[in-house]
C-alpha cells in the first residue's frame, strides 16, 4: 500500500513541526559545533539524526499531494518535478553529506541550509491558512531574528578565537581563559547590543576584521530593527483591526443617536446589540460578507454556518438538499436584540418568520395561554396573517437575542411554483400546530 499525505492533515502538520524543530536546532547548534574547541560540542549523533530526519522528509514531500492551480494532485511525477524545480537540491545538500560520512568541514556547514525549511513550512501553512496568519508571521520574525543573532554571535566569536593576539576582543575582555560557554554568551551579548543599536562600549571592535564585521552587523541591525518594528506595529494593528473598526463605527453611531436625543434605554439596547453582533459575527453582517461568493458556494457556506440551528427548523430538516440550498441563499437572515418587535401589529402578513435562535412572545392579554404565546428556536410564526392575507392583530416581541430567517410572499410564491414539495412541507409543519392556531384565532389573535 502506498502512503499518500495531504499538506493539511494533522499527521503531516506534526511532521512539519518536527522539521521546524530540526531547523531551529541546526541553526542554534551548528555555529557552536563549528566553533567549539572541544569534541564536547561536536554532537555527531545529533547531526546524523537530523540528517536522517531531513532525508526522510524528502520522501514525505514526494508522497504529499500538492495543490496545482487550485486542484489537489496525487500525481507523483508532477510532485517530483515540482520539488526538483524548487527545493530538492537544497534539501539533498543539507542532509546527504553527513549521512554519506562527510560529517566534518563543508558537510557540516552545508547543514545550515536546513534552516530554510523553517520559513518554507511557515509560508506553506500561511498559504493553507492552517493557523492564524499573523501569529505565523510573528513566528517567522522570531525564528529569523534568532538565527541572525546566533549567526552574528558565532562570527564575532570566530574572529575573537581565530586571532588571539592582544588586540582581539577576547584578549581585551580577558576572556581567553574563560570557558566556551562564557565566551559564547559574551559574543551573543555583543551581537544583540550591536544589532539593537545600543552599543554600551564594553566590548568593542579593534582589529580590521572586527571593524568590518561590526559595520555589517550594525547595518543589518538597523535594517532588521526597521523591518521588525514596522511589522510588529502592523501586526499588532491587524490583530485588533476588526475590533477597532467595529468600535469606531459603534462610537460614531452612538454619538449620532445621542445628538438626536435618543434615550439612554435605547442606547443601552444598542450597546447590547453591538456586543452580540461582535460575539456572534465579529461585527460583520454575514449576508453582506458572503455576497461576493458564487451562488452555490454561498449556499453551502450559509448552511454550514447555520448547521447548529437549522436541524431544529422543520422547513430545513424536512427539505430535500436542492430546496435547502435555495432556501439558504434566498431567505433573509435577520437578528434582533431583546425587546424588538419581530412582527408588528397592523402590518400586512406578508412574511413567514422562522426562528433559528432565541425566543419571542405574542404581546397579548391573558386570553391566550403562555405556551401558545411563546415561540422558540425551530418555531415559525406569521402564518395565520400570511395565509389568510390579513393584517396582524398583535405585536410579537423578542425575549432574547433572536435570529430568524424571513420568507417574503413574493419569494414564497416563486418557490412554491418551482418546488411544489415546499407546499407539502409547510402543510406538514402546520398540522403540528393546529391546536395553537385554533387557540389564537378563538382569542381573536392573527399574527
Amino acid at each position, binding site marked *: 500500500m502506498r502512503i499518500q499525505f495531504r499538506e493539511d492533515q494533522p499527521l503531516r502538520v506534526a511532521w512539519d513541526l518536527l522539521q521546524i524543530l530540526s531547523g531551529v536546532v541546526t541553526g542554534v547548534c551548528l555555529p557552536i559545533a563549528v566553533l567549539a574547541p572541544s569534541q564536547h560540542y561536536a554532537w555527531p549523533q545529533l547531526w546524523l539524526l537530523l540528517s536522517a530526519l531531513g532525508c526522510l522528509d524528502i520522501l514525505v514531500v514526494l508522497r504529499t499531494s500538492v495543490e496545482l492551480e487550485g486542484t489537489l494532485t496525487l500525481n507523483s511525477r508532477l510532485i517530483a518535478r515540482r520539488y526538483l524545480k524548487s527545493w530538492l537540491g537544497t534539501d539533498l545538500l543539507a542532509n546527504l553529506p553527513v549521512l554519506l560520512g562527510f560529517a566534518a568541514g563543508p558537510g557540516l556547514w552545508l547543514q545550515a541550509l536546513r534552516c530554510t525549511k523553517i520559513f518554507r513550512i511557515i509560508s506553506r501553512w500561511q498559504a493553507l491558512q492552517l493557523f492564524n496568519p499573523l501569529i505565523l508571521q510573528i513566528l517567522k520574525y522570531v525564528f529569523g531574528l534568532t538565527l541572525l543573532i546566533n549567526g552574528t554571535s558565532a562570527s564575532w566569536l570566530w574572529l575573537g578565537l581565530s586571532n588571539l593576539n592582544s588586540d582581539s576582543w577576547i584578549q581585551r575582555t580577558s576572556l581567553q581563559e574563560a570557558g566556551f560557554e562564557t565566551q559564547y554568551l559574551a559574543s551573543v551579548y555583543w551581537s544583540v547590543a550591536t544589532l539593537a543599536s545600543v552599543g554600551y562600549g564594553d566590548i568593542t571592535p579593534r582589529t580590521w576584521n572586527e571593524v568590518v564585521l561590526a559595520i555589517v552587523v550594525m547595518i543589518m541591525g538597523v535594517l532588521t530593527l526597521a523591518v521588525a518594528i514596522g511589522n510588529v506595529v502592523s501586526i499588532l494593528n491587524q490583530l485588533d483591526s476588526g475590533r477597532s473598526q467595529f468600535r469606531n463605527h459603534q462610537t460614531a453611531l452612538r454619538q449620532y443617536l445621542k445628538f438626536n436625543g435618543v434615550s439612554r434605554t435605547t442606547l443601552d439596547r444598542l450597546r447590547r446589540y453591538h456586543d452580540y453582533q461582535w460575539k456572534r459575527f465579529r461585527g460583520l453582517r454575514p449576508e453582506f460578507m458572503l455576497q461576493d461568493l458564487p451562488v452555490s458556494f454561498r449556499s453551502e457556506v450559509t448552511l454550514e454556518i447555520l448547521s447548529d440551528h437549522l436541524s431544529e427548523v422543520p422547513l430545513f430538516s424536512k427539505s430535500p438538499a436542492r430546496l435547502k440550498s435555495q432556501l439558504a441563499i434566498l431567505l433573509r437572515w435577520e437578528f434582533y436584540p431583546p425587546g424588538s418587535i419581530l412582527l408588528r401589529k397592523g402590518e400586512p402578513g406578508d412574511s413567514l418568520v422562522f426562528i433559528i435562535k432565541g425566543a419571542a412572545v405574542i404581546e397579548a392579554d391573558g386570553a391566550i395561554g403562555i405556551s401558545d404565546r411563546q415561540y422558540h428556536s425551530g418555531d415559525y410564526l406569521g*402564518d*395565520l396573517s400570511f*395565509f*389568510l392575507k*390579513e393584517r396582524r392583530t398583535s405585536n410579537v416581541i423578542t425575549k432574547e437575542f433572536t435570529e430568524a430567517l424571513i420568507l417574503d410572499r413574493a419569494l414564497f410564491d416563486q418557490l412554491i411554483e418551482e418546488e411544489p414539495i415546499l*407546499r407539502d412541507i*409547510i*402543510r406538514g409543519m*402546520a*398540522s*403540528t*400546530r*393546529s391546536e395553537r*392556531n*385554533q387557540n389564537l*384565532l*378563538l382569542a*381573536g389573535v*392573527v399574527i
Partner: protein
Amino acid sequence: MLAKMLQQILVSMELSSRIITGCLVISISGELDTTTSPELDALLAKECASVKNILFSLGAMDYISSVGLRTFLANLKKVKAAGGRMALAELNEEVREVFDMAGFSTLFEIYASLNEAESALGIA
C-alpha cells in the same frame, strides 16, 4: 331602508340550510368575512340546539377570513362538546389552501364531495 338595501348589495354571501335526518346542512356561497359571519353565527345559534351534526357545503364559497374561520372553530368546539360531528365538503382550492397551510385541516372532517360527506355522517 336605504341602509338595508346597501348592506344587502355589499354583503356578498348567501346562506341556505336544511335539516336531513338530524343533520344541519348549510350551503354557503360568496365570501365569509367580518360582515357576513354574524349571519352564519345567528343561523347556527338558532339551529344548533335541534341537531347533533353539522355539514357545510362550501362549493360556492370563494373566500374565508379569520372571523369566518373563528365561527367554524367556535362551533366545532360546541358540536364536539355535545358529542356531535362537523364536516366540511367541496372546499374550493383557495379555501382548502388556507385550511391546509394554517393547520386547520386536521381539526375538521373535510370531504371532497357532498355525497361523500353525507355518507360519512350517515344521512345519504
